């Protein structure tokens, strides 16, 4: 492992221990206040934890509460931070912003500018080199910020929701650019967008309330969530219980039919909300669950029907036909083939 860190910040209820392998992009998923930015600040050296230790390939970055206390300041860590906002230095041109890292590393002005031009080309922003940050659009500024972070030649790149502040129209272009420049690089990406994690990360760590709730390869974690929080992020219904010969039985006694696994172990069933049909009278189906509707939420071309722990996505026409009243009893129906059962 290249980066190994464990840290505790008592005031924020934060206690996390994780590792990042060389060349790996790790995504940190979590809701606001889960401690994602706290983690990045600690790794970057901008926030001092109460206790903990981090090392890069065996060399310590900090050690607090150990026998030999150590705290490397940010500029001696070789770790660049790319924030949600580009934070380009307003008094420098785009080129000099990107050249800032190489200049700080002791390169001559000319050499630094040559490096900077290379990185501006890499993010397709060569035409912006003479621009002042105040004249750039959000997407342009963020591209320059990516170039600036990479030009510092960091051994580890931290990205704090780099696409969150961008228009929906520009985000995909920047996501593709990030995918290209992150290939083979060691990086930690904080996001609450599942798409970012799926596109950019090899592995995810899900944070909730200052602690890791689950981690693993991106696709596996997001397709087979084990924690309600991850399921929520991945947009899946999650039922946790015990595997049976025909599927899974929850502690409340709800039996779900699906492709069975070895019976008698703790297991989870994931069902996509769009696979669930909503009926006013009890239908015939592999799985029928009688629920009380709690909420209707319009989501563009579909409407999410919330009923306790389960969500179903139906067409607006269907939602209108259901004649929604909070507390009304409806039936959620879904075929066995749409239920994914796995041990957890």
């Amino acid at each position, binding site marked *: 492992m290249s980066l190994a860190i464990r840290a505790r910040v008592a005031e924020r209820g934060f206690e996390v221990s994780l590792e990042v392998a060389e060349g790996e992009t790790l995504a940190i998923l979590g809701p606001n206040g889960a401690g994602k930015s706290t983690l990045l600040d600690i790794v970057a*050296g901008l926030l001092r934890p109460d206790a903990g230790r981090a090392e890069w390939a065996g060399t310590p970055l900090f050690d607090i509460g150990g026998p030999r206390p150590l705290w490397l300041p940010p*500029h001696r860590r070789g770790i660049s*931070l790319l*924030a949600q906002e580009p934070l380009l230095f307003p008094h420098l041109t785009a080129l000099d912003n990107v050249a*800032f*890292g190489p*200049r700080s590393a002791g390169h001559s002005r000319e050499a630094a500018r040559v490096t900077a031009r290379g990185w501006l080309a890499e993010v397709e922003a060569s035409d912006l080199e003479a621009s002042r940050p*105040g004249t750039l659009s959000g997407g342009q500024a963020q591209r320059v910020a990516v170039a600036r972070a990479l030009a*510092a030649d960091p051994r580890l790149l931290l990205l704090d929701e780099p696409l969150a502040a961008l228009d929906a129209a520009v985000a995909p272009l920047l996501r593709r650019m990030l995918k290209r420049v992150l290939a083979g690089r060691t990086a930690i990406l904080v996001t609450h967008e599942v798409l970012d994690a799926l596109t950019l990360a090899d592995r995810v760590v899900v944070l909730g309330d200052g602690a890791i709730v689950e981690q693993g390869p991106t696709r596996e974690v997001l397709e087979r969530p084990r924690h309600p929080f991850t399921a929520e992020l991945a947009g899946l219904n999650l039922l946790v219980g015990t595997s049976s010969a025909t599927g899974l039985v929850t502690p409340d006694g709800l039996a779900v039919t699906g492709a069975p696994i070895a019976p008698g172990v703790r297991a989870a069933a994931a069902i996509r909300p769009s696979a669930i049909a909503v009926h006013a009278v009890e239908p015939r189906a592999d799985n029928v669950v009688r629920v009380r509707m709690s909420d209707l939420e319009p989501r563009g071309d579909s409407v999410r029907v919330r009923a306790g722990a389960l969500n179903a996505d139906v067409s607006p026409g269907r939602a209108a036909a259901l004649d929604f009243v909070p507390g009304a009893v409806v039936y959620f129906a879904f075929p066995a083939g749409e239920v994914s059962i796995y041990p957890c």
Partner: protein
Amino acid sequence: MAPRWSSAIPGWVIAAAVVGAVFVLFPLAAMATRVDWPNFLSLVTSPSSVAALLLSLRTSLAATAACIVLGVPMALMLARTAFRGQRLVRALVLLPLVLPPVIGGIALLAAFGRRGLLGQTFDVLGVSIAFSTAAVVIAQTFVALPFLVLSLESSLRLTGTRYEAVASTLGATPTTVLRRITLPLIFPALLSGAVLSFARALGEFGATLTFAGSLQGVTRTLPLEIYLQRETDPDAAVALSLVLVLVAVLVVGLTLRTSAASSLVRRGTS
């Protein structure tokens, strides 16, 4: 940029504001009417006047430089660090702002005067500060320093530390961050703070008279000269006063222009 909402200001507020503006401008205009215009040039170019004006400009520039050298680090300590007793330190540092300048002069005598705490030390080194041009600069720095510190500290807080944090993660040492990020970002405030300090130093009277005395060409700055002339040659006093007003207007106008220009550069052309 025009404000998005223009709110209606009550008529009586406008009236009070006009009274306030007239209150400031009327005495200055009245003074201009008292100037002996035919002899103006000869009055302000008398040897003692020229000596006083040059001394004032020299010492005020030196005091401004001293304010920058001492004030920037003080503002950084107040805005960027947290230590025990910081609020008390801030209050004490800003004390010269509210202190009668004469008291400042007496305090400086007690510290650096011939019989002062450090006076003997300086004597041993063969340096006598009190009643020298250096004393003028010290007195001016003492009263002008808080202006620079105040203006810089609020600008530092306004700018925040985010750019500095980014710069440090790009590998910049604290000194590089200060030189290439912090100081350029607060440059407009540094400029306006320096001008305020310069103006305060230029007008310094009480502390200078108490601590440095009034020796022509050595410690008699323009305000002291004006006060002295008022007894013997009121016309010269009025003429010199007008010169000082013009210098002040020039300085203020110059800063407004440069700070407006530099904030335009910072914001880009959007």
